[in-house]
């Protein structure tokens, strides 16, 4: 669409329009929404049944076995924690940089963060096998007076991911409070009561806002180093071991860049149907998608650079085991996943150098799907190919996921989309207060 045409369409936006348009989807859902929800519930059921089967029969029904003891479950954990990261990037880091274009996408991106961490959190539990012992990870005074080993990166993960979930939830909820008050005032009856209770009696006095502004700013300030720390800690689950292919100092920045890359792709994947289904074209424009495409391109370049540096370091180390590990990754049993990873994460996003592609929502949607697939494979390749081909040729072996692991993988995607679907019909998918703030300061459009 031509810029002038777009300007003509959005120039009329007022604060009342923002209230009305953004709150509109919170009404009686259409049949297609129920159908989608039904599909996700069905697939969650498939995943849950597979998990119960695993609990009943034992962890042996999963494909993980010696030497690859970390498989699809840990791949999923790392993938979903990574997906979460761009939500915090958009909501906190871009807030601190005063990037106005985040206004219309931050709410849904933050929701995605929370649902992605909820999905990620399932996998260490599923991977435990005997899930009822999960509380052993928590520091609590036990009868034997033994505590978790705080030198272990796996215990550090519990703190990092737990803090990340809590802070993301607090940050998201704080941003929602004024919007919940707007919904309380818009609706009547039970809806008004529920949103009223959730808004904690917010009325928007200057006194309330002044404390709110500071709290929001500090939360953005702490969420920024937090997001960088979380995937760094996740990467140390690997990098602190001596496994060839894992033991590398670049892992923390490599994982953080990959996390933001995959998260941006997931934001695009979610935003395109959301914008279309709820008629939010005036709010989420080509301008916003172009900015996301630029971030996608930047992080793709960082990820591609990291892939190259891994190979350079393997060669430069003059360590034959390290070199063999990386050569086997590209030529051995996992060559296909490896080249899928390279194609999806390094080659496909290069199309974003072209402005026409960056402003084409259909093209970006397709690219984002490629990146989602590529990033899942990246996690899989790092985990499975490294463990399958360690030091001793006698200990080599390959891993193939079992149907139980695949069913749980599918169920995890359904679980994520289930929560996102619920979110789209119960809460404002765009921050009403922030859009109004933008409009009140003389911006009659939200970006072209």
């Amino acid at each position, binding site marked *: 669409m031509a810029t002038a045409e777009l300007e003509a369409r959005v120039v009329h936006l007022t604060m009342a329009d923002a209230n009305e348009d953004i709150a509109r989807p919170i009404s009686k859902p259409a049949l297609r929404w129920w159908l989608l929800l039904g599909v996700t519930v069905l697939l969650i059921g498939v995943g849950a049944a597979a998990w119960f089967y695993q609990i009943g029969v034992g962890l042996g029904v999963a494909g993980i076995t010696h030497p690859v003891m970390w498989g699809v479950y840990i791949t999923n954990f790392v993938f979903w924690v990574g997906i979460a990261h761009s939500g915090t990037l958009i909501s906190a880091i871009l807030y601190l940089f005063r990037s106005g274009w985040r206004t219309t996408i931050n709410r849904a991106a933050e929701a995605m963060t929370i649902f992605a961490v909820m999905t990620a959190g399932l996998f260490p539990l599923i991977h435990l096998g005997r899930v009822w012992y999960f509380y052993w990870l928590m520091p609590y005074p036990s009868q034997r007076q033994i505590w978790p080993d705080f030198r272990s990166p796996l215990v550090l993960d519990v*703190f990092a991911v737990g803090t990340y979930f809590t802070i993301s939830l607090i940050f998201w909820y704080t941003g929602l409070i004024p919007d919940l008050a707007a919904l309380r005032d818009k609706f009547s009856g039970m809806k008004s009561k529920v949103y009223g209770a959730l808004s904690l009696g917010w*009325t928007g*006095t*200057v006194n309330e806002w002044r404390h709110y*502004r500071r709290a929001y700013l500090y939360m953005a300030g*702490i969420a920024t180093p937090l997001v960088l720390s979380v995937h760094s800690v996740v990467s140390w689950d690997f990098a602190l071991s001596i496994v060839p292919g894992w033991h590398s100092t670049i892992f923390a920045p490599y994982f953080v860049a990959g996390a933001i890359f995959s998260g941006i792709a997931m934001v695009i994947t979610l935003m395109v149907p959301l914008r279309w289904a709820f008629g939010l074209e005036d709010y989420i424009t080509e301008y916003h998608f172009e900015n996301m495409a630029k971030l996608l391109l930047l992080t793709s370049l960082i990820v591609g650079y990291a892939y190259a540096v891994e190979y350079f370091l393997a060669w430069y180390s003059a360590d034959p085991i390290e070199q063999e590990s990386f050569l086997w990754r590209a030529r051995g049993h996992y060559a296909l996943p490896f080249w899928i990873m390279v194609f999806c994460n390094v080659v496909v996003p290069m199309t974003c150098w072209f402005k026409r592609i960056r402003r084409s929502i259909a093209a970006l949607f397709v690219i984002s799907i490629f990146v989602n697939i590529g990033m899942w494979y990246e996690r899989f390749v790092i985990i499975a190919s490294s463990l399958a081909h360690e030091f001793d040729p006698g200990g080599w072996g390959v891993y193939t996921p079992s149907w139980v692991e695949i069913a749980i993988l599918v169920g995890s995607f359904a679980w994520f989309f289930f929560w996102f679907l619920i979110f789209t019909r119960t809460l404002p998918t765009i921050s009403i207060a922030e859009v*109004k703030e933008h409009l009140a300061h003389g911006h009659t459009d939200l970006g072209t």
Partner: protein
Amino acid sequence: MSGVLAQYTSLGETESAIRRFREAGHTDLQVWSPIPSEALEEAMDIHGSPVGRWALIGGMTGCVTGLLLTAGTSLGYPLVTQGKPIVSIPPFIVVMFELTILLTGIFALMAMLVHARRPRRDLSPHYRPEFSVDRFGVYVPAGQWDLSDVEQLVRDTGAVDVETDS
């Protein structure tokens, strides 16, 4: 208590109305806004917020808790693992850092709610649903002034809706 409730449609009008009320001696104003605004805070001569101090206290509490938890439990059950010292500061820093962040966030949220006097079940009788849509509201208590004089002052500021509460 009697007073006048005025509604405005723009931030600028509200800001100048607040300044006029304050110049006329009405300092006990209640102001509602659909958006956060530094300009309104300045017009009401409100500066800063103690939320930052609470966030700092939370952060320091988290950091100390992280150190006590990790070092204390390691010393309480001294078991050498991975060939590392019993009190291994580098990995413990991660727990200290995460708890610093966690308690900073929780303290900031709590401080915001306490200082904003939320949660609250009953809304102010002067609050109107339009204040969460696109209207700015200012309630001017009459105090020692004559109610009709206050109403006239409010009308002079260009309020689009004026309600007198006697």
